[in-house]
């Protein structure tokens, strides 16, 4: 095993471990958000993290933004949740990271995750009959971007791109 091979292996291992870390980060957001731990979620995001939920409408034949904001905005929004009346039926994000692309300079990356969100009814309708029933809520993709700074990787951007556009009551929670 010569020096060059050694270096190539090291680099490959490096990029493969970055790739794994990125997947873990994405999956961590699913867990944190499912558990309504908004702070833990936002702590995985860079200061100037930008979040948006978007969908293409075949009705108006145009791309739409359903909500957007930076980390600060999301922090405020989630802090104020207790002041609002919400459907608190738990959501479970079920994502699979389909693709991770690390920039040539190793300083940023992008990832595509296919997800579904299931909602288990709690207090959104007639709880005596409906609570405890799980339903498909959303289908879409996460298009994420990352900043890589040595060992530290943070989300710089998340676009939630929804297929589902029958949103019914919608939600107070970031997806």
């Amino acid at each position, binding site marked *: 095993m010569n020096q060059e091979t050694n270096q190539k292996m090291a680099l490959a291992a490096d990029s493969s471990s970055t790739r794994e870390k990125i997947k873990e980060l994405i999956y961590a957001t699913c867990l944190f958000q499912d558990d309504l731990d908004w702070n833990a979620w936002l702590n995985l995001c860079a200061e100037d993290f930008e979040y948006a939920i978007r969908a293409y409408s075949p009705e*108006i034949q145009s791309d739409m933004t*359903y909500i957007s904001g930076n980390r600060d905005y999301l922090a405020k929004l989630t802090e104020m949740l207790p002041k609002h009346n919400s459907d608190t039926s738990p959501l479970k994000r079920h994502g699979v990271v389909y693709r991770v692309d690390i920039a040539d300079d190793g300083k940023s990356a992008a990832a595509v995750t296919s997800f579904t969100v299931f909602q288990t009814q709690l207090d959104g*309708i007639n709880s005596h009959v409906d609570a405890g029933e799980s339903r498909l809520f959303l289908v879409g993709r996460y298009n994420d971007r990352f900043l890589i700074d040595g060992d530290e990787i943070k989300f710089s951007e998340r676009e939630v791109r929804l297929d589902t*556009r*029958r949103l019914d009551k919608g939600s107070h929670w970031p997806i």
Partner: protein
Amino acid sequence: MSSRNHAQWTATPNLQPGEWVDSRIYSDHHIFEEELEKIWKKTWIPVCHESELNNAYDFRTMTIAREPVIVVRGKDLKVRAFLNVCPHRGNMIERRPAGSFKRGTPSGTPKTMTCMFHAWQFDMKGRCVNITRREEGYQDRLCTADVGLRELKCEVWFGGFVWVSLDDDIGMTVEEFAAGSLDCLAPSLNEEPLEVFHYHKAIIPCNYKLWHDTNCEFYHDFLHYHNRITGFNDAYFARKNSGFKNGHINVGSFEVQYDQYEGFESREALSFPHLPPNHWYMIDMFPGVNFNLRGSALRCDLMTPLGPDRVMIEFRGLGLASDTPAERQTRIDHHNSIWGPFGRNLHEDLLAVTAQGACMHSSAEKRTILHGRHENETIHDENGMRHYYEEWGRWLDRSPGNPDMNFAAHKMQSVADNAQRASAGM
């Protein structure tokens, strides 16, 4: 002060007739079908906005009272509406929600509507322009002139909304139908072309009128943290709630303090034409339409009743066609913060009517629903609903307070009751 037993609970409220309705108007199957026939098939509906079909050959499809409708823009740029039903064997002619007939379809040539089933074709004026193998199959017995599409009354009016009626004999223009209710927003909407930037739909297990009620009153400000924090001051409560002919209402404006809600901002910079900064107007049109202008963004709700305890609501957001991308984004943000599917107010409103609907599902017991607040016809008055149900009673010839009674009897009853109460010093 105590809880009530069954007799007390079901007693006629000690209020004037018209100040309550019978919950069966929100839940009865028979009344629902009657509403579709006597109201929804007899009125004007703003089915979409002209910006959704900008170019010749563009189309939009929808339903009114379950009937499939297609709106197309002709070569002459005129917008026309038709039943989206093929005269041959009743197929839905176009399945897509929107698109263009400029390009052909798998079974059809460009610039025509083609029924994919047997490829009968129609032009943008609804004329049948081709019956496949006509001579072979129909000889002289049937010709294209016999089988044009069913054309529907259609007007583009009020900031570019496309209004359709299933009733050939409606006998009034949209303007006449609106009866002045649209005037408060007309200057802001008619100044320059608008454009839809937002569309989403909700199907909610409640009667459509419960959604309309919510749109008609501001007393439910207590539901919305955002409203309480940004609104409650003297000017807020002084907003007028005015009725117009045909069951429509308006809510007058005041200046909203958006910056009182953490993370939100003033909308002053992007006010619609002629609208004072951060002002807010609302129009509720009979039987289920809402226009709502909060400074920089216009919202329009269109209800499509699907059953006595099921309504589809289409939410549109509109800005100015002339917006720069940055302006547009700001309008979208303003719109979404409160009204988007992930916004602060819309979720609360939909949650409330869902819960209300759960108590007024189609087999629920009859209850009394109070519409009896009088507050000088300002926004916490419930006069908007009283105005609406008076009109509703007229169209259906039923008393909203007792739908087993006809409307005339209801009116007489009201007069008699009032007299009696007055003489009894109640």
